[in-house]
């Protein structure tokens, strides 16, 4: 049978718009689900998605891609890679799967919102494929770690993490709920697909795929490269929506949504991707630093994307560039020090050789972050592991739900960014975090951080063991030093030399 070329029929077939007669326009596209920008429906008729595909093409390509990923997994599964892999690499896998897998399903719901409530036919079409993408991503990223559960119970957190009150899970859940589960279709298109996916998933999926290939983990490298090709396609939903918003006088509101989504994504990546790239990846396989990846993928590319569309750089751009030097080091130190509270085993990444690498990539590291690690190293070498474990809670930001951190040691620069709202005191980790809250305080005011819950008596007993139980962490789940402190011995040898 002769098939028409897609370009011959696509525009007509996807333009399934009609004028409602049984219901009102408002009933068909409720404002809070569809478009809080109030752009007239006819303005969306010019929406032109840059990437066009048909269902037949989608199924053919995705079937081949997924078959490739599953067959690589099956072939390499017999090689016992994971039984012999560096513990730091296993840590990356556990953190990634727990933070990402179920959120793919959440992203699927957001794609579904655009598929149903987007006013542009092209957006609805693209988002339908995006919904299928995210469903597949959720399934494959649950399936791959599942076979590792008998080997290591922490892999079970691929499925469990988002169902618990573990602090990093709260941070991820609250951030993603704000950026896309709890937004109208048009806001989803610019906050999820433009800011988060165009801006950041490149970092997690392409940057990490490169590290995975270097580390010899072809299964994971193949898996996340596969996912990123889908992300790169459906991430393009947002840019044409932004063009229409700007054309219809909504630049200021659109800019604000992008700025909120970018900042909140950045903060999440400081705890997820930053430690993976600069500390958990085995030193011999570590090439570019997190900062270098960020400068290449985010600073250069995303900044250009924004300016090309007619947006401005976010007002906090200089603060963001400054944070590239420090924030993820703080998130790493926090995750390591409070390691019983995470579902992965943080690799300290603080051997003599590690520290030389860190100093080269981040001049001044030894005088700042190294000052804290000096004390920790001395305690480890003296067998005082008790002093390297938490006796209280870090205070977490009421926006990111991550610890409020800053530069320690010489050049100490740590501060709170508090605000009073309706008689309650809120704490924030940065000026942009506080600014996000102040844009729509009622949206965020009711949420209680883990520390708020602790102080208000929701966690019993109000002790570290009580907190661990509240977070769903049993003895086999709690994080430990990934290398059983072997990294510290290099310092003993150096001192003896």
């Amino acid at each position, binding site marked *: 049978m002769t098939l028409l070329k897609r370009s011959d029929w696509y525009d007509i077939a996807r333009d399934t718009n009609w004028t409602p007669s049984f219901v009102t326009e408002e009933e068909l596209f409720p404002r809070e689900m569809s478009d809080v920008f109030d752009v007239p429906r006819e303005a969306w008729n010019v929406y032109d998605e840059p990437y066009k595909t048909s269902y037949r093409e989608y199924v053919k390509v995705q079937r081949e891609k997924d078959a490739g990923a599953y067959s690589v997994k099956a072939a390499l599964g017999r090689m016992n890679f994971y039984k012999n892999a560096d513990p730091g690499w296993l840590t990356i896998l556990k953190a990634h799967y727990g933070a990402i897998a179920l959120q793919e399903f959440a992203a699927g719901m957001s794609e579904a919102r655009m598929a149903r409530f987007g006013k542009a036919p092209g957006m609805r079409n693209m988002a339908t494929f995006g919904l299928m993408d995210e469903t597949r991503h959720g399934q494959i990223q649950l399936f791959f770690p599942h076979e590792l559960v008998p080997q290591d119970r922490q892999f079970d957190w691929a499925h469990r993490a988002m169902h618990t009150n573990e602090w990093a899970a709260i941070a991820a859940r609250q951030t993603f709920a704000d950026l896309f589960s709890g937004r109208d279709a048009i806001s989803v298109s610019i906050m999820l697909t433009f800011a988060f996916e165009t801006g950041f998933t490149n970092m997690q999926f392409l940057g990490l795929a490169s590290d995975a290939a270097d580390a010899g983990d072809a299964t994971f490298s193949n898996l996340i490269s596969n996912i990123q090709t889908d992300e790169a396609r459906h991430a393009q939903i947002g840019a044409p929506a932004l063009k229409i918003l700007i054309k219809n006088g909504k630049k200021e509101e659109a800019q604000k949504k992008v700025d909120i989504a970018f900042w909140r994504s950045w903060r999440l990546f400081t705890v997820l991707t930053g430690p993976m790239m600069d500390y958990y990846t085995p030193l011999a396989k570590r090439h570019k630093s997190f900062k270098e990846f960020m400068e290449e993928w985010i600073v250069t590319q995303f900044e250009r994307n924004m300016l090309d569309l007619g947006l401005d750089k976010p007002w906090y751009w200089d603060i963001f560039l400054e944070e590239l030097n420090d924030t993820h080091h*703080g998130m790493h130190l926090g995750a390591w020090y409070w390691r019983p509270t995470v579902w992965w085993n943080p690799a300290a990444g603080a051997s003599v050789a590690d520290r030389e690498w860190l100093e080269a990539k981040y001049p001044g590291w030894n005088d700042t972050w190294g000052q804290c690690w000096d004390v920790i190293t001395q305690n480890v070498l003296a067998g005082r592991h008790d002093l390297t474990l938490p006796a209280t809670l870090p*205070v977490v930001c009421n926006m990111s739900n991550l610890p409020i951190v800053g530069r320690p040691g010489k050049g100490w620069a740590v501060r709170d960014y508090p605000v009073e709202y309706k008689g309650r005191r809120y704490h924030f980790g940065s000026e942009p975090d506080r600014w996000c809250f102040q844009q729509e305080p009622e949206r965020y005011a009711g949420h209680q951080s883990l520390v708020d819950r*602790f102080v208000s008596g929701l966690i019993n007993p109000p002790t570290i063991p009580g907190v661990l139980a509240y977070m769903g962490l049993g003895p086999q789940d709690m994080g430990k030093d990934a290398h059983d402190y072997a990294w510290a011995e290099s310092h003993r040898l150096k001192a003896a030399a």
Partner: protein
Amino acid sequence: MSAVPLVVNFEGDFVLQLVGVDSANTMDQVAQAAAAHSIGRRVKPRAGGVLRVSRQDAPEPFARAQSVADAGLQPMETVVVFWNKS
């Protein structure tokens, strides 16, 4: 007397921490309670000097003998603990 959870920013450390004190505690006692969570854990001990407590951005620290209640510190208020000559 009542328990007062404070948000503590300790000089040289990298993170704000939750530190429980009593409303009757003096500022020297608050400083010692805060130090237990930082010095010898991630902050090197210092010879000489005295740990003082202030509100964030306040020009002067609290008097060392002043109590938490007298200082008017509220639960979850942020204080800075830092070294001073006296």
